[in-house]
């Protein structure tokens, strides 16, 4: 029986009067990569934003171990070990690559961040070459590396990835997939929203399908290896 890291129960989120999540419930297991699938507007990104505290749930529970996160502010949730790589990346464009990365570990203290930074440069040698450059001068793929590296600098218990392949070339999507393989091997728990189903099925261990803000399907990606078409139909039809 896999160990559960996060439990989400009956989560309701609305933007104004428009409900987006309507009672979504699912678990995230320690060390796995879970991907949320669904058509546009199904509540995938809203799920991530609710977990991170950027939107306040109207009802329901988000528990990380024994800690209730629902209703906490983003900085408090980050302090509990939940880091997000957002769709817009939200980097600090005028700061150097190294400053962006170091800031990811600032709340953790500077003593261990040097070691972590060396690990990030091992993982992304291109960032080591560009460590002094402002991030706005980097390509989209390199900026995505910085965003992922910054989140990893905090050594999160749970890493949320919102469209990690968004707007990137197929070559870089493969790099993302390989990176996620490496993170899984190191035991990093990930929750990913990804429109690129090829990448989602390549990188994830389990999937969940959201429709109209509720979970309608889910399972093991490998067990459904020959039924990806059925999953896709379930998402869009």
């Amino acid at each position: 029986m896999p160990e559960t890291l996060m439990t989400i129960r009956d989560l309701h989120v609305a933007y104004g009067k428009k409900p987006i999540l309507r009672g979504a419930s699912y678990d995230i297991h320690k060390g796995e990569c879970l991907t949320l699938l669904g058509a546009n507007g199904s509540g995938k990104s809203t799920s991530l934003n609710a977990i991170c505290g950027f939107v306040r749930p109207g009802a329901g529970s988000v528990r990380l171990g024994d800690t209730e996160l629902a209703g906490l502010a983003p900085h408090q949730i980050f302090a509990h070990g939940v880091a997000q790589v957002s769709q817009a990346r939200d980097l600090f464009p005028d700061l150097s690559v190294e400053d962006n990365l170091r800031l990811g570990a600032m709340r953790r203290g500077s003593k261990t961040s040097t070691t972590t930074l060396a690990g990030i440069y091992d993982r992304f040698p291109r960032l080591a070459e560009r460590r002094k450059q402002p991030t706005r001068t980097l390509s989209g793929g390199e900026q995505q590396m910085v965003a992922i590296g910054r989140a990893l600098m905090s050594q999160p218990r749970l890493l949320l990835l919102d469209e990690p392949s968004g707007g990137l070339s197929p070559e870089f999507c493969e790099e993302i997939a390989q990176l996620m393989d490496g993170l899984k091997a190191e035991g990093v728990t990930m929750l990913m929203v990804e429109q690129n189903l090829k990448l989602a099925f390549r990188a994830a261990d389990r999937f969940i399908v959201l429709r109209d803000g509720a979970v309608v399907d889910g399972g093991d990606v490998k067990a459904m290896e020959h039924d990806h078409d059925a999953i896709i139909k379930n998402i869009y039809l």
Partner: protein
Amino acid sequence: MLMQLTISGISQGAIYALIALSLTVVYRSTTIVNFGHGDFVMAGAFLSYVLVVLLGVAFVPAAMLAVVAMFLLGLAFSRGLVRPIRGGPHIGFALMCISAGYVFRGIARIVWGREVLPMPRVFDINPIFIGDLIITGDAIFILSTTAIMLAVFFGVLALTDIGKMVQAVYQSARGAQLIGINVDRFNDFTWGIGAALGAIGGILIAPISLLHPDLGASFLIKGFAAMTLGGFGSLYGAVLGALILGLSEQYAGAYIDSALIDITAYLVIVLVLFLRPHGLFGRKAIVKV
């Protein structure tokens, strides 16, 4: 004469720089333009007047107390009046700032009426003579104080971890939240810093001009003109814009017509918005995908 005007312009511009910088500090983190900031400047000047003249506190400790008090007032203003209306329309922030400013001004009028008050000279610094050029004690005091303040401000911003965090919030509030920064508390702190910097401007003005409850209005416009010229939101631009504005006032007043001193700030705003809307240091955002 040119050098004399230049010294006067830089001295005047240094005060504008503190005011423009304090406006920019708040604007960069909150995107709120504090239309009541001139009255925060006035409140700082009056607070130092009360401490020095009415309570007999020496100038330096009085100035420090006034700056700390204005920092706390700015922080309380943000926590008590700005944060609760955060989800509302942007015009609400402008009206809140204007209203708070008028409350400060009203309090000053209730206590002192519309009379002008002389602040006693605080330092008897001898002027420096370089040939025909005279650098007055007031100019030395203003320039050295402002130079120290700006060096500390930009030094902290560029060289320390706290400065990097400040820059992070300025560049992406959401990104800052993603790395665990409490942006709401940061913004409260920013309002405090803005009010304190404005108060320093007011305290520097106090000994060289007469105090009156309406003195903040003209300095607010100077601050806006400096921000516009430097590029709205640019910290370095605010300082450079302020110095250029101070010089422009002096040159225009001396070489064209002295009446131009009063309208130079307005002319600068009109010309910059017309010719280079993003100012000297403003730039358009580029998003790479």
